[in-house]
């Protein structure tokens, strides 16, 4: 089976600092892949590269057969019509109602008539248990509702790939569990390939077919839930068992952090 | 706010703004929309010091035209001033054109005084009778020197 997403030797920098280093990853059709990592592990950066929002220093990212690092803006936009992205906070536009937010991609990219657009948007909102909320403004919704509305918008074009950033962050356990169910349902009923970025263990173990763990810009391990659970990699176990990191202290870096001076510059 | 009010409001705003621009351009910028029909005559002066193109032409204190062009006649060392006057103002051939000052530091303008002739000036004709700009310095020095002689 051909991979839907194929990342080869991805290296990225922020200024002089290397953020991601030698990432190799493939995502198969109809699979739910969870990218895990603590904060500062580079997982948000990785997601932004997968979405084509940033250009890497080197390496390739093939999505649906096209290397997005070399696409023109026009080609990239064409590809993105087959991709849905649900952002952490929903990223709904504050000046539009919830309904208009969900309708926006249809209005921009299709020539459907007004009624069809409205019905399709309502269907997706219904799927997210948000029926009747379409005339509200985003500021009137709770965090969990915003996330679900954002998901509805990501799905309204029936994408082949769905990216979901931190589905359960900041939600109470019940709502988080509902979202996990929803993600599973999407894969099962619509046959989507889903990439989820999260730091929540519980949710990752529940939904993932495979998990990949990022730590300090490198992929530590990629495998099924059981494989990852069973690994004896220390960093992964630290993450799973909520153990604090015990980094070897770099004397210079430590001094730098404390004094704020650049020792290398002086 | 519903869409109708937004549209009305924007429409009102745009119309008001454009009306302002139109007023400025026509009334002050003299873009010829309301410009009355004119004819032009010329007049010779020994000095037009301070008079500018676009300056006012008055008759009995009423504005009747403007200074169109000022050129030097190199042969006679005289200034030839072309005036453009409103069509409805008829000037006798022996009318007098004089250059005056509004206030002490005010703008120079051309003052016309009617004559008594039966002949009416037409497009391109010349006003023969003129009084040049009075220079205050000359006036003052003349007064002082004449006083000396006595």
């Amino acid at each position, binding site marked *: 089976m051909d991979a839907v997403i194929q990342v080869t030797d991805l290296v990225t920098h922020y200024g002089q600092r290397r953020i991601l280093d030698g990432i190799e990853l493939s995502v198969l059709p109809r699979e739910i892949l969870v990218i895990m990592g603590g904060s500062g592990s580079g997982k948000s950066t990785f997601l932004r590269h997968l979405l084509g929002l940033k250009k890497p220093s080197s390496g390739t990212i093939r999505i649906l057969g096209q290397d997005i690092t070399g696409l023109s803006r026009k080609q990239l936009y064409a590809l993105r019509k087959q991709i849905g992205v649900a952002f952490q906070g929903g990223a709904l536009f504050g*000046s539009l109602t919830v309904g208009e937010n969900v309708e926006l991609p249809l209005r921009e990219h299709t020539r459907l008539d007004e009624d069809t657009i409205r019905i399709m948007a309502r269907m997706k909102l219904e799927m997210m248990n948000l029926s009747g909320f379409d005339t509200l403004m985003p500021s009137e919704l709770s965090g969990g509702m915003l996330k679900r509305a954002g998901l509805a*918008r990501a799905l309204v074009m029936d994408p082949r790939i769905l990216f979901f950033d931190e589905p359960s962050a900041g939600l109470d356990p019940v709502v988080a569990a509902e979202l996990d169910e929803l993600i599973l349902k999407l894969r099962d009923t619509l046959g989507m390939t889903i990439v989820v970025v999260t730091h929540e263990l519980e949710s990752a173990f529940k939904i993932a077919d495979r998990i990949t763990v990022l730590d300090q810009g490198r992929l530590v391990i990629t495998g099924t839930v059981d494989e990852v659970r069973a690994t004896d990699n220390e960093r992964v176990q630290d993450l799973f068992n909520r153990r604090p990191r015990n980094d070897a202290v770099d004397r210079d870096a430590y001094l730098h952090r404390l004094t704020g001076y650049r020792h290398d510059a002086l | 706010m519903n869409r109708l009010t937004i549209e009305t409001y924007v429409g*009102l705003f745009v119309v008001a*703004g454009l009306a302002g621009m139109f007023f*400025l351009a026509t009334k002050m910028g003299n873009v010829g929309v309301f410009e009355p029909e004119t004819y032009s005559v010329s007049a010779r002066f020994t000095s037009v010091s301070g008079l500018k193109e676009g300056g006012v032409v008055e008759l009995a204190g009423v504005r009747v035209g*403007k200074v169109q062009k000022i050129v030097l006649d190199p042969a006679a060392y005289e200034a030839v001033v072309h005036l453009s006057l409103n069509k409805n103002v008829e000037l006798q051939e022996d009318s007098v054109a004089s250059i005056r000052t509004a206030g002490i530091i005010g703008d120079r303008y051309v003052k016309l005084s009617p004559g008594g002739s039966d002949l009416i000036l037409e497009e391109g004709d010349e006003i023969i009778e003129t009084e040049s700009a009075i220079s205050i310095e000359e006036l003052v020095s003349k007064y002082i020197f004449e006083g000396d002689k006595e």
Partner: protein
Amino acid sequence: MINVLHRLGDSSLGFVEQAGRLLLFLLRAIASAARPPYRWQALLRQVHFIGARSALVILVAGFFTGMVLSLQFYDTLVRFGSVSLLGSAVALAMIRELAPVLTALVVIGRAGSAICSEIGIMRSQEQIDALECMAVDPYRYLLAPKLVAGVISVPLLTSLFIMIGIVGGWFVGVVLFGVSEAAFFQGMYETVTLHDIRMGFTKSLIFGLLVVWITSAKGFFLHLERYGAHGAEGVSRVTTDAVVIASISVLCADYLISAIML
């Protein structure tokens, strides 16, 4: 010493970087505004926001500016016995300088700050990334209508400012101080030339572009601010920056245009 040089180099690099970014931003926004399909609805909404909703403030500001101008000029001119020049003085000062500049400053305060914080919030809440990911070009969807609306609205507001300013000047000069009404308006019509009007509106066009350009770019590049700007505090700081930079740019541009056109 080396430290000072290091900082100087660092900040000049930052300046060049920011200038380049702003220029590319403007070019891309103009390019996407020029290509169809045009977003008439969005443009209408922006002209409403930047223009129509500033009209009331402009009218009040313009009226008082005209009044104080007339007051000051009257006091000066009366010493030279040239009160008949009052109308010309008020109109010229209004048309050439005060109306374009003050209108731009009012628009910066009312609409520019709102544009900057709106776009800044969109950036910090990933809404701009969301647009990108929905294959909707934020330059076309978000920025082009604002830019075009700025270029349309500011000259219209300037025109209102001039008109109401002249009324204010008339009120003080003619009604309060008894200057002859005919002298006031005749003088004004005679002295003001098309060139003066052209200068005023050239300024207001450029200011309109400048105001929306700077404030929206500051918000748009919130995430690239050198000292890191995130969340509500970041947005408010960037908005303050944007207002200051836009105001100063308007005043600098005012001098440059005057020097070139006079």
